[in-house]
């Protein structure tokens, strides 16, 4: 194929926060850009576009992944949960509440990614101690330096979720 011609678009069925969307996309579209530019779900953030900062973290079939490193065309028919899907109406998820109560953010740009990663960290059973949380949250960085409060918020929510780690 001559390099400068348009590649064939692809049809993708993205299931996001329980709703299915049919999109016709450039194959180069990352999941992150599909969410932000095509579905106007801008809660998931672009901090580096290279998988190094974690601001783009979403849940894929319940597991945390970096949406900037996923091609949307390869996420057909899988369940995606973004920050917008975490709360139910006015009711915040316990980890969101914990972030507010522990002031676990300043500028807020890393926050959705931290929360999505934190939800998964708790569900995986990796929130047993501050040290364990720091290691298992190493995929998310915070330039404002809210790490201590982020760890505290995750501990709060993990404790409330109980020893089984459900949260």
């Amino acid at each position, binding site marked *: 194929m001559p*390099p400068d011609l348009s*590649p064939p678009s692809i049809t993708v069925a993205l299931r996001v926060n329980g709703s299915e969307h049919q999109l016709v996309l450039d*194959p180069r579209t990352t999941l992150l850009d599909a969410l932000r530019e095509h579905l106007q779900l801008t809660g998931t953030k672009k901090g580096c576009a290279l*998988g190094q900062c974690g601001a783009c973290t979403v849940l894929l079939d319940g597991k945390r*992944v970096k949406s900037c*490193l996923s091609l949307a065309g*390869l996420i057909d028919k899988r369940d995606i949960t973004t920050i917008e899907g975490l709360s139910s109406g006015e009711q915040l998820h316990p980890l969101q509440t914990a972030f507010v109560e522990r002031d676990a953010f300043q500028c807020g740009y890393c926050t959705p990614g931290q929360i999505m990663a934190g939800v998964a960290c708790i569900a995986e059973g990796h929130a047993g101690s501050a040290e364990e949380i720091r*290691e298992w949250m*190493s*995929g998310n960085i915070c330039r404002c330096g809210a790490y201590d409060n982020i760890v505290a918020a995750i501990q709060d929510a993990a404790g409330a979720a109980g020893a089984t780690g459900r949260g």
Partner: protein
Amino acid sequence: MHPFTLERPRDLAAALAFQAQAGRTDAAAEYIAGGTDMVQLLQEEVRQPTRLVSLAGVLDHRIEVNDQGLRIGAAATMADVAAHSGIVQQFPLISEALLNSASPQVRNQATMGGNLLQRTRCPYFRDVGYTACNKRVPGSGCAALTGDNQWHAVLGTSDNCIAVHPSDLAVALVALDAELEVRSASDRRTLRLIDLHRLPGDTPHIEAALEPGEVIAAIQVPSGPAARRSHYLKVRTRASFEFALVSVAVALDMDGPRVATARIALGGVGTKPWRTPEVEAALKGVTPGSPEVRNAAALAAQGAQGRGHNDFKIELMQRAIVRAVEIAGARA
């Protein structure tokens, strides 16, 4: 990213029919599995395949552990393998190496096969603004030779390329004598993992011993007493989520307090995962923690060549071997 056609085949036969080739930086058709390295390479325009063949759903992802050993489907994720109870108990070296790699999110997406075939982190390779990179553009030179080369290799280099292979998993598997099941449309062959990655020599753009239309289907590791008494030591400048300056995979089969058989492989220092048969031979009969270990470790430096900013690795890797042997030896 440069435009590409994204193929989403329904089964392995259909995927192989595209004749994609892994391990060549000039391939027109490449595979994509988890995508955690490939998407970066595409974003930075380091790789510009015209066709991308997805392996999602067409490769085996099962993890099987029994008395003979271990078989891991190439599509198994780093996270699933690291957490598998059979691997944690019988092949802890593999789990350790994986948990020392990347971040939790990346480990959920990245696959075994993709990890073994990931490209070097050399900044001159990864940034197309640098015109001299023989791996990216054959014949253009190597900027790292006279540039900032503290991350680069001291073993297995040539004057055409000194880039380090970045995979921790590969180092652990090489120490454990892993073999690969390689499949093509017409054939199935076994390839020792140590023979997968090629030295740069005169052709740094050819990285793996895979033909067009071949794919890594599974990884096999034989069982043995050494597999259990092991340690993966990773020396790096950050506590987490960073590649190795130097790493050591050690697996020991002990005879009382002394080493009967040692398996040692190095990461961060070689253009491919570096097995050290001379060190292993010299460790026979040696007690971990004794001064003889350092004499044995010194043999790893034979043929090592510093390039100015990475000379420290030659001393560091010897010390890392000593430390790793001591830790592995102390394990029950």
